[in-house]
């Protein structure tokens, strides 16, 4: 495939506080690209920027600089109501699509796809008791099988969370303090110093 | 939801008692310090209140602009007498038809709405009619109203009676009241009555079991306005004039008060009791003190605070308590 699925190109997002004396309270930087369908596991502590990154990818949040290309289209140039044809953000149990509307529709391009190509699952509620995990994982695999790109984002606090990640994901991204570290498989991921640091005891149990 | 006695019959014992009291009224009304004309007004407002309660008490639809249809009835009666011909039947039919027509048009706008939006639209339409009655003064006589409306003789084919005395008028009005009571009693116990009661309790479910809720809401509003029109026509006959202020928001509020004080939400007879109590209290207080509004308002507040289900409701509660001690019937008093 000539066009990469997802290109996150020198993306930068800053949050600041104060009107006159601006202080940057949080910044996120990302620069990566994913060429083909996969299930990507994303981990990181709360507040590290996972959700912000998802919002930037689905176009519901404006980047400070850089751009996001989904299937070759700059997501921020696509019509608001059609962005979900490219990338879609699942928040726990429902899907969110809210946009800061800044431009009229006619200035934007339509989406080229009919069904979302990039699926971003933001902390799905995994509960071993009710048995739904199995169906969710099947769903991830089904999407992957249909040629989509799937992101699963988690803040692991139980050993089985890591098991899920290991079982279902092919690639990994670790996010901490607004910066990303990529890893090609689970073993490489957990060898990383900051990851071990963050997961601590969970890695050993898993 | 409504009272228990004789639900299936055409005529019931409470009806007979009510009729008996009302029929005998002219013989004792003066001796209790009242006057015949008050009886006429009370019975007319009873008809109005019964029709209104079809909407409020049975279907749960609050209308705060019902005076408009009462007023339309009054004007239609007056105009037909003044401009077409003097005939009681023509007048009353006009009153009913025009009020129902106005009601039907308004109901078409209303019937998709619920709760506060429903109530507000009734106010808005009521105000529009009220406004028109003043604005269109070439026809309605403006704020002076339609004056010198004749009170035609009652012509029933083979005989003709003069209604110029208040006693005669009273019996005529009472006869119509009897017809309305019997008809409404029948109606609320018919399938139609059951459906509107169902709509009051659960409008959505009624739709989901296949009823055209819109059509029922529309028809019950129209029916209720037709009765308001009938009452309005009789009122014009009693007053020999028609005034716009029976259409005002204030007047529309009073019918709501009347019905609720009487206990229209829980009893068929609530509006009847309410109309009687309302006029008696007002007449008493109004002649006793210039600040009658204060006492009236306080009485009203006390009623809502302590006996929100109204006089009929309080009575039912009283009876229920008595029953509970005898036969242990634990059916609760419903809203």
């Amino acid at each position, binding site marked *: 495939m000539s066009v990469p699925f997802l290109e996150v190109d020198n993306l930068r997002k800053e949050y600041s506080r104060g009107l006159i004396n601006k202080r940057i309270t949080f910044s996120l930087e990302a620069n990566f690209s994913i060429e083909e369908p996969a299930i990507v596991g994303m981990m990181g502590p709360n507040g590290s920027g996972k959700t912000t990154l998802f919002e930037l990818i689905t176009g519901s949040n404006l980047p400070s600089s850089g751009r996001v290309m989904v299937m070759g289209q700059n997501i921020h140039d696509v019509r608001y109501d059609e962005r979900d044809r490219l990338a879609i953000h699942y928040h726990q149990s429902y899907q969110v699509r809210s946009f800061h509307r800044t431009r009229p529709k006619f200035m934007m391009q339509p989406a080229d796809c009919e069904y979302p190509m990039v699926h971003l699952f933001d902390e799905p509620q995994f509960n071993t008791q009710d048995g739904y995990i199995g169906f969710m994982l099947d769903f991830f695999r089904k999407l992957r099988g249909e040629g989509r790109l799937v992101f699963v984002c988690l803040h692991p606090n139980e050993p089985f969370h890591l098991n899920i990640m290991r079982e279902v994901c092919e690639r990994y991204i670790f996010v901490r303090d607004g910066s990303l570290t990529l890893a090609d498989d689970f073993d490489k991921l957990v060898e990383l110093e900051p990851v071990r640091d963050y997961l601590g005891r969970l890695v050993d149990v898993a | 939801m409504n009272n228990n006695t004789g639900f299936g019959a055409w005529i019931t014992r409470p009806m007979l008692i009510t009729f008996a009291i009302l029929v005998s009224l002219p013989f004792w009304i003066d001796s209790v310090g009242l006057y015949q004309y008050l009886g006429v007004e009370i019975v007319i407002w009873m008809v109005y209140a019964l029709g209104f309660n079809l909407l409020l008490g049975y279907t749960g639809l*609050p209308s705060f602009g019902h005076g408009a249809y009462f007023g339309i009835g009054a004007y239609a009666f007056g105009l037909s007498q003044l401009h077409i011909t003097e005939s009681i039947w023509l007048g009353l039919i006009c009153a009913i038809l025009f009020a129902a027509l106005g009601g039907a048009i308004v109901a078409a*706008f209303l019937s*998709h*709405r*619920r*709760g*506060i*939006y429903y109530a*507000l*639209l009734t*106010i*808005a*339409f009521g*105000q*529009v009619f009220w*406004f028109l009655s003043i*604005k269109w003064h070439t026809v309605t006589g403006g704020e002076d109203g339609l004056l010198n409306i004749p009170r035609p003789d009652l012509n029933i084919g083979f005989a003709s009676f003069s209604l110029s005395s208040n006693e005669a008028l009273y019996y005529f009005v009472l006869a119509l009241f009897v017809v309305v009571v019997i008809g409404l009693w029948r109606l609320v116990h018919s399938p139609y009555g059951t459906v509107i009661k169902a709509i009051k309790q659960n409008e959505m479910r009624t739709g989901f079991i296949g009823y055209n809720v819109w059509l029922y809401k529309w028809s019950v509003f129209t029916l209720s306005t037709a009765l308001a029109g009938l009452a309005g026509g009789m009122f014009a006959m009693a007053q020999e004039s028609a005034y716009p202020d029976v259409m005002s*928001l204030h007047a529309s*509020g009073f019918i*709501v*008060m009347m019905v*609720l004080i009487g206990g229209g*939400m829980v009893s068929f007879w609530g509006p009847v009791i309410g109309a009687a109590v309302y006029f008696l209290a007002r007449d008493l207080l109004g002649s006793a003190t210039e*600040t009658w*509004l*204060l006492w*009236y*308002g*306080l*009485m*009203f*507040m006390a*009623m*809502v*605070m*302590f006996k*929100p289900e109204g006089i009929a409701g309080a009575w039912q509660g009283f009876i229920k308590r008595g029953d509970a001690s005898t036969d242990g019937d634990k059916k609760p008093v419903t*809203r």
Partner: protein
Amino acid sequence: MDFLINLTPHLVNGIALGLLFALIALGFMLIVGVMEVINLAHGSLFALGGYFAMMIIGVEPGWFGPLGDWYVGLPAGARYSFALVLGPIAVGLVGMLLELCLRGTYGKDPLFGLLLTFGAAMVIEELIRIGWGSGEQFLQTPPAISGAFIWNGLIWSTYRFFAAGFSVAAIILVWLFLERTPYGAIIKAGAHDSEMVRALGINLSQLRLYVFAFGVALAALAGIIMAPIWGLRPHVGVDAVIPAFLIIVLGGVGSFVGAVIAGVLVGLTVGITGAYASEWSLMSMYLLLIVVITFRARGLFGKKSMLEN
């Protein structure tokens, strides 16, 4: 072009009028939105605010000893400001009393709250009549905001612009209070979920008491502001409660922004019809309501509310 030049003053006037309408509706909206009580006594309390203010401004020497004399010596502006603060507080206390009466109606059909306040409206109006007589009264305004000025060749009332500006300030303050303070958050929570308020450990009956008092105080504030324009008589409140009602429904029950926008919309409608088809100016707001509600079932910004059931 001439038409536009002629129209402009009416647009300005309409917006000013609309802001006054919004102020009138504000307290009503709060009580409807949070407590789901349609407070028909809003109008009477509106009038009561005007009367209290008149009394506070009109204190005469010797009434309250030295403190009273000191007060009488203050400039008119200061006394007026006192009235603007104390009047609503006093009416707020009356409102608390009314709220206690209302308690029995909570959880029942909203009709009962509506009827109780209808009764209260009669009582308050009659009490005003007993206390101050049924005649027309006059609320004095300080010289700084009285009089008129000329703008674009037309005479404009200074007070009206003060009143419109005051409305804007009051609206913004109430908005900030609701949106930016923890109290506001609690009130809004109470509007949507009384269970949650209880879970948060907040005394719901106290919350309702204060919200009602606050809403009623806003009614009084509007009454004080409107008194120099509409005049002051026992039944002046009737003129306030209907527009308030209308605006709330037009804007959508429970929507703050909706109420403000609807207020301005009604003001513009009444103002412009007042200029070009004055005989229809009163009717126009009802027609506006009918049109809007026909096409938008819950008003401009309405959300689902218990009052619909």
